[in-house]
């Protein structure tokens, strides 16, 4: 006769649980300890700031518990994940609630410390020791079956992923495969054990739990405990500073390797390159495979689509940038010429236009901008008429912040001296660095899509509408980076008919010309371009419109129809007044 609610089969579980809890506490302290001082301060402050605190609560429930983002991305996967994770969560919660109503089979009543210890495993194995009320019995069975239904979908997904709308799934190593097998079998074992009370199944159930808990810190399932911390850190507004420390480490642990980014990545158009996607990058970082992590960070085009589709919002692009910053590339840059550039200004315009080097190579855009600004009667000046200074973004992309700074400072001086109140850029590559790295207080920075939209809306220019069917391509650094989706569409709509691309807005596919990648070959880029053009041609448009000179150049090579910048189509249809 048992004096206590105990059986040796609970031991594996208890051991596993103790291990994982210890590991998580140590990991938490390590991550917080690795944060730079100012970041840590920011973090503590964010926890008590009402705005971020509210965002924390919202996302902890929305993302960790209800998996809203996966539901949005793919309802089948949403159900699969919720069934397992939410179902398991409910079983744990209900189990603990139920503790008070359980009637122990042996009639034992344990009190005090022993009771507390017992409670640690009691709800997990209660069926062996007690009976529950019918309501609880129903709830527990319901959620258990829900979990098993989720596991069934997972098994189908593993065998034939296309059926759930996923082309490529992440390829796993031994440890990940093993822990997944453990996870899949935990609940069927529990069901059998509960229904039959055969000892062997209780043992199997408990050992399965132990395997899962003990392997968890070293596999993708670490995302379960880490995601909560990651949400808090993210809302504190941190940026990864080092590729494998602090905030980045929290992200590495939070990546569930679900592989949604694999299908999304433009590079996956070539199967060979699907191993360069963010899911694998995060895995390489986790496994401390620095060589490979460095290579993938250099291959990435920084289009940000993986971040847009990520159900956990892992900022893999930022981590890749921090990886680049950590690599001492030798670039012989000579910025001595900057001193010789005069900052004297003759006239003081209200609008300053900075074409940037890519637009200098696509003079049609500059011409159109000139025509538009003339028609609007703007008092403007071209900042880089005679060739200006680079905006600094290419250096930034190479992880060379100090070198970029030299150019940024000179440009800032030039812009501020001009006295202009507005800076217009036609290159999203420039726009990103101007928005993020420049300190131009009091000067409004606009991309030309926003600027032209404003001119049309306030009646400064009049555009004659024509019948042409346009499709608009969202440049990565304008769309995904800044959410500028509506302004360009308004402009295109003012000029003609607009048809949808197959993938739009945050799902738009990189043109393949990106400055971001160091080592994609021309052929690999061409494949990406062809795929992106195909996607844009989905509704048979007459012309492709984009808002980035680099996209324009890249598409022009592969497109069956004319490719134009948004400024060009406006310039063509503008009425001179």
């Amino acid at each position, binding site marked *: 006769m048992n004096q206590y609610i105990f059986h040796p089969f609970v031991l594996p579980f208890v051991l596993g649980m103790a291990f994982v809890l210890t590991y998580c506490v140590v990991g938490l302290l390590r991550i917080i300890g690795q944060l730079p001082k100012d970041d840590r301060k920011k973090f503590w402050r964010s926890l008590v700031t009402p705005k971020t605190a509210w965002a924390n609560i919202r996302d902890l429930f929305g993302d960790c518990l209800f998996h809203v983002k996966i539901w949005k991305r793919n309802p089948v996967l949403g159900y699969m994940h919720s069934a397992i994770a939410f179902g398991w969560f409910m079983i744990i919660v209900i189990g603990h609630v139920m503790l008070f109503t359980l009637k122990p089979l042996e009639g034992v009543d344990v009190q005090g410390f022993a009771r507390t210890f017992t409670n640690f495993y009691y709800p997990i194995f209660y069926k062996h020791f007690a009976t529950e009320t019918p309501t609880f019995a129903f709830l527990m069975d319901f959620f258990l079956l829900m979990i098993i239904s989720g596991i069934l979908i997972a098994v189908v997904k593993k065998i034939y992923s296309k059926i759930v709308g996923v082309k490529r799934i992440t390829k796993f190593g031994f440890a990940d495969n093993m822990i997944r097998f453990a996870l899949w079998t935990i609940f069927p074992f529990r069901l059998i054990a509960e229904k039959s009370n055969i000892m062997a199944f209780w043992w199997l159930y408990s050992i399965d739990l132990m395997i899962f808990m003990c392997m968890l810190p070293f596999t993708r399932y670490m995302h379960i405990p880490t995601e909560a911390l990651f949400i808090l850190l993210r809302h504190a507004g941190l940026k990864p500073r080092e590729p494998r420390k602090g905030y980045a480490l929290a992200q590495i642990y939070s990546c569930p390797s679900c592989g949604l980014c694999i299908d999304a990545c433009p590079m996956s158009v070539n199967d060979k390159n699907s191993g360069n996607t963010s899911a694998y990058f995060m895995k390489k970082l986790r496994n401390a495979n620095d060589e490979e992590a460095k290579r993938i960070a250099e291959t990435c085009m920084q289009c940000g689509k993986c971040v847009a589709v990520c159900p956990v919002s892992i900022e893999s692009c930022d981590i890749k940038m921090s990886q680049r910053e950590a690599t001492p590339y030798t670039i012989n840059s000579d910025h001595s010429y900057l001193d010789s550039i005069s900052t004297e200004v003759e006239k003081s315009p209200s609008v300053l236009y900075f074409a940037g080097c890519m637009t*200098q*190579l*696509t*003079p*049609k855009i500059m*011409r159109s901008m000139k025509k538009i600004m003339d028609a609007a009667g703007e008092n403007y000046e071209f900042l880089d008429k005679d*060739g200006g200074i680079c905006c600094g973004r290419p250096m930034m992309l190479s992880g060379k912040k100090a070198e970029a700074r030299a150019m940024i400072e000179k440009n800032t001086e030039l812009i501020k001296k001009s006295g202009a109140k507005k800076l217009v850029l036609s290159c999203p590559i420039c726009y990103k660095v101007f928005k993020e790295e420049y300190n131009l207080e009091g000067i409004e920075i606009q991309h030309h899509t926003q600027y032209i939209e404003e001119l049309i809306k306030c009646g400064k220019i009049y555009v004659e509408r024509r019948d042409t069917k346009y499709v608009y391509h969202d440049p990565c650094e304008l769309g995904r980076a800044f959410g500028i989706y509506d302004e360009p569409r308004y402009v295109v709509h003012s000029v003609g008919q607009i048809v949808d691309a197959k993938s739009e807005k945050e799902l738009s596919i990189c043109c393949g010309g990106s400055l971001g990648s160091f080592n994609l070959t*021309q052929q690999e880029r*061409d494949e990406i371009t062809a795929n992106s053009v195909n996607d844009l041609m989905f509704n048979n448009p007459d012309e492709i419109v984009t808002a980035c000179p680099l996209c324009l*150049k890249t598409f*022009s*090579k592969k497109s069956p129809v004319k490719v134009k910048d948004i400024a060009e189509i406006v310039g063509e249809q503008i009425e001179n007044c």
Partner: protein
Amino acid sequence: MKENILIIGGGAAGMEAATQLKKLGLNPIIVEKSDKLGGHIAQWDRLFPAFHPAKDVVEQMLNNVKDIDVRLNTEVTDIQRNSDGFKATLSNNDTIDAKAVILATGFDLFKAERKQEYGYGIYNNVMTSLELERFFRTGKDDRINNPKKIGFVHCVGARDVKVGNTYCSKVCCTTALKQACEMKEVFPDAEVYTFYMDLRMFGPGYEDLYLKTQKDFDVKCIRGRVCEVSEDMDGRLVIKAEDTLFGKPLKMTLDVLILMCSMEKAKSIDKIQQQLGVANNSDGFMQNKDMYLGMNDSKQDGVFVAGTCTAPKSLPDTIGEARSVAVEVFNYINNR
């Protein structure tokens, strides 16, 4: 009965092949999509390296084909293989039964608009090498008004990964130097610059032309690519380039800029090529059987290739290939 040989394309390769086939006792039929024979060479004024009038060569070739069946303003719209050879349907609904087909479809000139940074079609005073030949022939072009500074850009659309053409277009180097000298002849006071990557003077007398260009005509050859072109207030062209021998960037104002456009395989033949099963190489030109002993054979039985449809070639090379294809076809017919 004489055996029909269908020749698609009435340029230098097509005409010369027809001439030789006729001499060999076969019956060549030339199908030419434009309204006259001669192809690109008929639009040229003078030929390198000796400034020989293109007209002389073209007229002689035209004279050679005057008894040959030529269908102008006609395209092959459909071609089917049968037990007897080929049956081709033309755009005027005629049909031709032929024992063998020679593809002598030549090249398209690279569309200079595709290198937007050079400003063709945007700035007035940017023109192509072909347009400059027209100026030499007619003496008229609105863009050329007693220029003081003239620039030539080599390799436009050639050896350029960014436009997808990695090959060398072979003849533009020599053409550029020839045209530079000719500009200097017309405008002796003008300064003439050429911007090259390498000068590939591969043929007899070509290197001499290069020396002459510098010594006698005082043309300045700068090694480096032009990276961008813009227009100043007066409509003159401002170019940016790098002098790679000095390792210095340079900026220059020019009155007229001539783009040496590369050759690309003519696109209009794509459909027929597909019907015949003749594939392209990675550079977009037609594939021949092998580069040494099978340069005129396609991989398809009875289908032959000649001239610039397989790679950029000079006029002498093209004529040589046209003659060799005639022998190949003659042997093919006799061994059937």
